[in-house]
């Protein structure tokens, strides 16, 4: 692009009518607009926001009900035979657990742990995954060979086995849980980032950056990274529910966050022996977990669709699109079928 052209563009931009005129939209703005049209994605965002809010305000509810998260109510919270009491009994909104603790409050506190684990491990995995994937893809050669093999090994490993062994050796704690989940999550992100980097680094604009004297780190993090943010964002959104499920599974196997701290997984793990006598003990925590993971999964799908400009075309090829095109064509007096539909 010549200098005069740039000047011309700058001039055109200045002289464009302010407000109401043609407005440049960045890729992210376009994506955001598409996402806002997706009702399912909006609903998912609302659900996630509510969950986060409930998790943050858990102590407020605890003081409102005067029920601490680990406080056992042996008199009011259990029946005379020692079984949990049902929802609505003695002021326990969702009933109690096996030693008479308020299930509602425990689920709220469980949300804190489950969401915290989900988000923190995903953040760690994303940073490590992007870094390692970029390095492997950009440098290539033996660096790539070593890193790619390592990624494959981690991906192919029966991770629960190692998680179990680790937890057996170091006594279970929140740190171990976060460490184990992060360690088995970064590789998937790395693999995608590596693949994308391999193709991006051959693009002309990278060559241009290099010929301007940019070093490898600058190219990787300033020039390539922004182009990877889309897929990484989608992956991260989809990894959060996976991590939440992973934590729940570790707790179920007895190697998760230790007692008495509540997490959704630990509540469900305790509930195992009570599902014939106390349905609420299983149903409410599973519902909290399912609603949250489903919302993250649906949101991830929505973001993926919104990032993909082809989505609109696929949509246009559907029934509504065809009808719309037919109406348009009828008005213009042309064939209602697209060339593609005629040709195939």
């Amino acid at each position, binding site marked *: 692009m010549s200098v005069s052209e740039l000047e011309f563009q700058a001039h055109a931009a200045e002289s464009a009518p302010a407000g109401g005129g043609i407005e440049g939209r960045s890729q992210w703005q376009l994506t955001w607009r598409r996402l806002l049209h997706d009702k399912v994605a909006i609903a998912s965002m609302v659900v996630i926001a509510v969950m986060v809010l409930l998790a943050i305000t858990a102590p407020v509810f605890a003081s409102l009900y005067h029920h601490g998260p680990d406080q056992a109510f042996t008199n009011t919270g259990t029946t005379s035979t020692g079984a949990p009491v049902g929802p609505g009994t003695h002021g326990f909104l969702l009933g109690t657990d096996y030693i008479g603790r308020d299930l509602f409050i425990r689920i709220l506190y469980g949300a804190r742990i489950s969401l915290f684990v989900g988000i923190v491990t995903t953040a760690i995995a994303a940073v490590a995954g992007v870094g390692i994937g970029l390095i492997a893809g950009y440098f290539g050669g033996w660096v790539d060979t070593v890193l790619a093999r390592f990624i494959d*090994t981690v991906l192919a490993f029966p991770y*629960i086995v190692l998680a179990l062994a680790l937890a057996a050796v170091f006594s279970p704690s929140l740190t171990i849980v976060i460490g184990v989940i992060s360690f088995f999550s970064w590789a998937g992100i790395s693999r995608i980032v590596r693949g994308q980097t391999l193709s991006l680094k051959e693009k002309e604009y990278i060559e241009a950056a290099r010929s301007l004297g940019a070093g490898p780190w600058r190219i990787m993090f300033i020039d390539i990274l922004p182009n990877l943010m889309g897929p990484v964002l989608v992956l991260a959104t989809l990894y959060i529910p996976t991590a939440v499920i992973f934590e729940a599974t570790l707790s179920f196997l007895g190697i998760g966050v230790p007692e008495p701290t509540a997490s959704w997984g630990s509540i469900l793990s305790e509930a195992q022996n009570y599902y014939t006598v106390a349905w609420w003990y299983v149903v409410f925590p599973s519902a909290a977990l399912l609603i949250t993971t489903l919302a*993250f999964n649906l949101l991830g799908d929505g973001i993926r669709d919104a990032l993909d400009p082809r989505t609109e075309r696929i949509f246009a090829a559907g029934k509504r699109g065809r009808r719309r095109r037919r109406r348009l064509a009828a008005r213009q007096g042309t064939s209602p079928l697209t060339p593609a539909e005629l040709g195939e």
Partner: protein
Amino acid sequence: MGMVRFLVRRILTGIVVLWIVSTGTFLLFFTRPVAVVARELAGRGATPQVITEIIRNLGLNQPLRVQYWQFLDRTAHLNLGTSYLTGVPVKTSLAQDLPITASVVVGGTVLWLIVGLGVGVLSATRARSLFDRVATVGVLAGLSMPAFVLGELLIIGVFLPLNEHGISWIQTGYAGLSTGVVPWVGHMILPWITLATIQAAVYTRLSRGSLLDTMGEDFIRTARSKGLSERRVILRHGLRAALTPVVSQLGVDIGALLGGVIVVEQVFGLPGLGFESLQAIDTGNLPVIIGFVLVASAFVVVANIVVDMAYALLDPRVRIM
């Protein structure tokens, strides 16, 4: 020729991977003080003499270097040692557990591929239809569910009510194939459904997306213009090419599948490899743990080789190098 070289190279790397994994497990285990392990094995109320005795009997008092060397030597001769607890050779108990785990894995995988691919193909051929939308949300719900929650819900919702009404075909626990195919399926069906439900989502989305992409290719137009029926175009030409990403995902998921098996065996009370290894980890029974880890990793390595070969069969453009 290329095939043989490929196989030799992959098997050699596989052995290296197995060595790394077993050494890792071995070292990890020994970060725990020997006395703790011995005390767990001895049970509650054991005298110090008993504990010392156990340590000596198991050879745990020797330097780590010596123990590691003995371990490598044994393993190289395919001797996995004997269980600390029962004295039964690990190979024997693994051989006992393997059919159970294999039943879960094979049946679950078949069901999961049928459901995953079937729904994916139907969704792709009816993109954006009601079926597609319902299927998308349905499989996502499956993906959003931890295996143990689904397993327990199946027990509460299917197993218990059916057995209350005297229908005892569906069972938990295990019945071998020797008791007949029908009881075997009855015992296995809930574990299969559990595994298939949590895994199918990924395959539905993959095959749907991949088939949608493939159906836009030139060779599909060629196939259609030859006058082939739509069913034949989709199944013989479209699906075959669309399967490549699905197969590569399969290689990745086998590790995850084994994790799922541990949970499923635990929920349904199946005394398979996962069940046994959980117990072994609880009691610090190192030979059994390493035996399980080795079998599991060998399975992953072999499965990945098979997957890479299936690649070449599916897509003639892929050449094994």
